[in-house]
């Protein structure tokens, strides 16, 4: 039972001041085992804050990140699942599912987590699942107009993943979940 937080596109301090208070109250240390961050934090203070939530922190570089040492892509194995991480501005057209599927096949992962569009998406295709946690601060995006703050928490339990989607809609936190299993031999 591993809890993995997928979060990104905070754009602090340029486009947003901080995470929404309701999100902050929920994100306490000790509960989460891994954090995967799509990028665009942008400053070191945000990095430190995420590190305080969980020491196991994986970040990929977004185009506005101040720290240039983050990698472009990353792959992590958690339990039975391989997770891939990429910010997404490299994949053109932005947010196009077929192109992202290409990236997923390239990285050879079961779950690909990308960002940049500031919109939550969970999509399944033959090669695997693509998850976009959206923007945790609801920062302005040139791609979409209505941006709700959102992030994703994955509960990885053997061959089953439960994806909890946390969205801030009209000042209230709404939580939904998505369930999927991995068939043992092939990808999902």
């Amino acid at each position, binding site marked *: 039972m591993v809890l993995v937080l997928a979060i990104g596109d905070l754009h602090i301090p340029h486009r947003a001041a901080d995470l929404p208070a309701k999100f902050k109250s*929920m994100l306490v240390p000790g509960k989460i085992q891994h954090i995967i961050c799509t990028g665009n934090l942008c400053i070191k203070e945000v990095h430190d804050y995420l590190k305080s939530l969980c020491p196991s922190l994986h970040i990929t570089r977004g185009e506005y990140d101040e720290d240039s040492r983050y990698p472009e892509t990353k792959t992590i194995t958690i339990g039975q699942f391989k997770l891939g991480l990429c910010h997404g501005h490299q994949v053109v057209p932005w947010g196009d599912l077929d192109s992202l599927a290409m990236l997923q096949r390239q990285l050879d992962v079961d779950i690909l987590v990308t960002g940049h569009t500031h919109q939550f998406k969970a*999509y399944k295709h033959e090669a695997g699942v693509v998850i976009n946690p959206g923007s945790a601060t609801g920062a302005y995006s040139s791609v979409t107009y209505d941006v709700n703050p959102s992030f994703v928490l994955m509960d990885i*339990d053997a061959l089953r993943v439960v994806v909890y*989607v946390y969205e801030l809609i009209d000042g209230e936190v709404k*939580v*939904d979940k998505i369930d999927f*299993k991995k068939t043992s031999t092939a990808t999902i």
Partner: protein
Amino acid sequence: MRAKKRTTSLPAARMDHVPDSYTHICQTHTHTHTHTHTHTHNINTFTLCIQTLAKIRSNNMVNKRVPEWLNSSMWSSPATGSSPPPKSRSQSSPSHEDRIANHTSKSSTVTSVNASVNETRESPPSPGVTRTKSPSESVTEAPATITEVRDPLARSGSSDNEISPREDASRQAQLLEELSRKTINLGELQRLASLGIPDGPGIRSTVWKLLLAYLPRDKGLWPSELAKKRAQYKSFKEDLLKNPSEITRKMEESTSKNGEDKGLLSRSEIPEGEHPLSLGETSVWNQFFQDTEIIEQIDRDVKRTHPDMHFFSGDSASAKANQEALKNILIIYAKLNPGIRYVQGMNELLAPLFYVFKNDPNEDFVVNAEADTFFCFVELLSGCRDNFCKQLDNSVVGIRSTISRLSQLLKHHDEELWRHLELTTKVNPQFYAFRWITLLLTQEFNFADILHIWDTLLSDPEGPQETLLRVCCAMLILVRRRLLAGDFTANLKLLQSYPSTNIGHLLYVANKLRSHSTS
């Protein structure tokens, strides 16, 4: 019975002599030397010290009573007594007994030379131990004479601490006979158990289960009761030891929509707002995270339980399995008792129970030792719960009140020692008695001795607390010489690492306190 103080013409020994002779006496006491010449020497100095003490006491103008039997029992040498030692255990061979008998007779002649002698002292009773004679009888026989001098043992009533193997075997036979009956007489079993349970195979395990009301008295009901309890424990385990993922999986009825190969994954509602970051009080996840702390604490304590014993610690598979069982029991107890949860120290109370039950020769009992231990642990803690509850510390039932009861008990039986400890050296009983009482003495003695003490504690029909206080009081009285001679640091050091003693003797003295409580 009050001891009248009397000044003597002998010169008072210097105070700095006193500690030496005290420790010397204590050493001989524990080593049970029986060379008469050294013994005579001891008696001289001892007598001197007693008289000095008497002088000091008499100077204080307050009645501080040291029971006469106490003085003599210091020598821990039982003539083979006619009165039964209710809580003694066989610790030595019969030859030791004979030596002690010689010891006694010799000492009595010496004391007659030194000071007031007890003319009416009864002669060392015959070796036959008659169980029926109660200790109180022998006490009342003791005549009231001046008692600065250590009284010969016979006066104290034959205190037979060491039982010969022959008697041990007979006790075992009695116990087995009692256990083999169809309906077990609990009172009789308690009485037999309070004398100490022999180490024969499986006896202690069964007797403890009966004493803790886990097994019913009617033997015919045992299979059904056991099956019921074990099934109950199994269901506890299934319910309480699961992680929230499994729980939420069971909560939802919907099947996973794995059918589609492509497309947006459908989002579904969360049942009752159960998500991992939920901060709600009733949330399964929130409770899980709160429990994680306790589980970690339990894990740490279990790993530290009895590190010297292979049964509990080490890398062997059995030790790990045992630790796992201990952890499960403690976790389930903590979850079922949200009022008290887990407190450090419960693992120490659990360890002897599990050890005894796991070492039962009966296969069925061994396999189910975890379930059996759980219920017996619950029963044991039901008496001691209040000691672990922080809020009750200052209340009537809390640990502070229990400690003050111990203090009062000590004052009642040995006021001089009480005064010295609490007022002169200011050793607050909380410093040592807290651990003694809450952990039922598991940290003070070695494991085998703990089992013997627990035989007595568990066999008390009113629950272990009363007997425990008496045993603690006896522990203090047995080292009174050293305590009286020591200052704060020395006394505290002594009491916090209590020296190993003859357990049979300790329990005997504790029982004597019971009979003395009304005098």
